[in-house]
């Protein structure tokens, strides 16, 4: 016992600290349920902004959804948008302050249901913003209702027998649609369920932030996520469920990489 205590005393010293809480995360406990993916993505965003040294020049736009209070957690400037309107608000901020790095943070209900028009048109205009899309296949905040991204057969509070095609239509793969738009510069799908996935997602978010400073179009990062409360599983079970059921429909990887389409094929002025 004394030996272990002595050993720990020698390891746990400030000079041996290799990883801990990002200095950009405020000293408040997040309101998210235990094990919610939102917290992991917040952490990654804070780390990227800190690593890039852009704390003073980054503006986030938070959604309506569980992440509505994102502005309480990451120590940067924020605006809060009405439900689904984050891309429109971010458009205004970026156009007035093009020197800033501007990003939205949105759930699937926010980005792919009520805000679909704002999402598609912002990307189609090639707005020089980053959009972070938390796809947990459900409306978490309001009690676990079906979202456009809900899987076929998935039980939610509004699909108690599982999502049914005839009644509810198909799950919307909005990231695939986004990747078709000429205004999209970088479109990728990530997750944060393992240390390796977290590393990859951090790299992708960093790349999106860097590219967005080059004014080459919209950078879009989907993070396939869990909502263990809505899914009525433990956090660990939720990760397994996500890998088994979500990844086949929402496979991880880059969908587009290379800047917005350089040519203007339909410009009648040639």
């Amino acid at each position, binding site marked *: 016992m004394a030996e272990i205590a002595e050993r720990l005393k020698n390891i746990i010293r400030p000079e041996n600290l290799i*990883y801990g809480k990002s200095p950009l995360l405020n000293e408040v406990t997040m309101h998210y349920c*235990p094990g919610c993916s*939102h917290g*992991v993505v917040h952490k990654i965003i804070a780390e990227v902004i800190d690593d890039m040294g852009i704390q003073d020049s980054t503006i986030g736009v938070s959604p309506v959804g569980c992440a509505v209070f994102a502005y309480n957690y990451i120590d940067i400037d924020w605006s809060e948008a009405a439900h689904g309107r984050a891309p429109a608000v971010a458009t205004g901020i970026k156009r007035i302050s093009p020197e800033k790095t501007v990003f939205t943070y949105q759930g699937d209900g926010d980005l792919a249901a009520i805000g679909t028009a704002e999402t598609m048109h912002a990307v189609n205009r090639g707005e020089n913003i980053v959009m972070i899309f938390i796809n947990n296949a459900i409306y978490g905040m309001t009690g676990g209702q079906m979202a456009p991204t809900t899987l076929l057969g998935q039980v939610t509070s509004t699909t108690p027998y599982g999502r049914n095609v005839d009644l509810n239509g198909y799950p919307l793969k909005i990231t695939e649609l986004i990747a078709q738009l000429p205004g999209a510069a970088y479109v990728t799908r990530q997750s944060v369920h393992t*240390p390796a996935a*977290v590393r990859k997602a951090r790299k992708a978010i960093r790349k999106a932030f860097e590219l967005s400073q080059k004014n080459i179009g919209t950078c879009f990062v989907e993070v396939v996520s869990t909502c263990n409360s809505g899914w009525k599983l433990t*956090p660990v079970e939720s990760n397994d469920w996500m890998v088994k059921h979500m990844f086949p429909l929402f496979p991880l990887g880059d969908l587009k990489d290379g800047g917005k389409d350089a040519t203007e094929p339909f410009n009648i002025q040639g």
Partner: protein
Amino acid sequence: MAKVIGAVVVDSEVCKGCNLCVVSCPTQTLGLNRDVNSKGYHYSYMENPENCIGCSNCSSVCPDSCIAVYRVKVE
């Protein structure tokens, strides 16, 4: 040969006992405490402190950023 040993410090009041760190640890260092914090969560702690290699896996998946990781090289 140089060996790496590590240790973690969990902010037990912030921890929500989600267990994600426990299952991500390659050396079975962590466990959830039988005691609870002031919010009633079984917080994570080093059940087998001698196992830790300071790899940061636990901390990288923690949604509440409540694990600090320390690492040293020993000869």
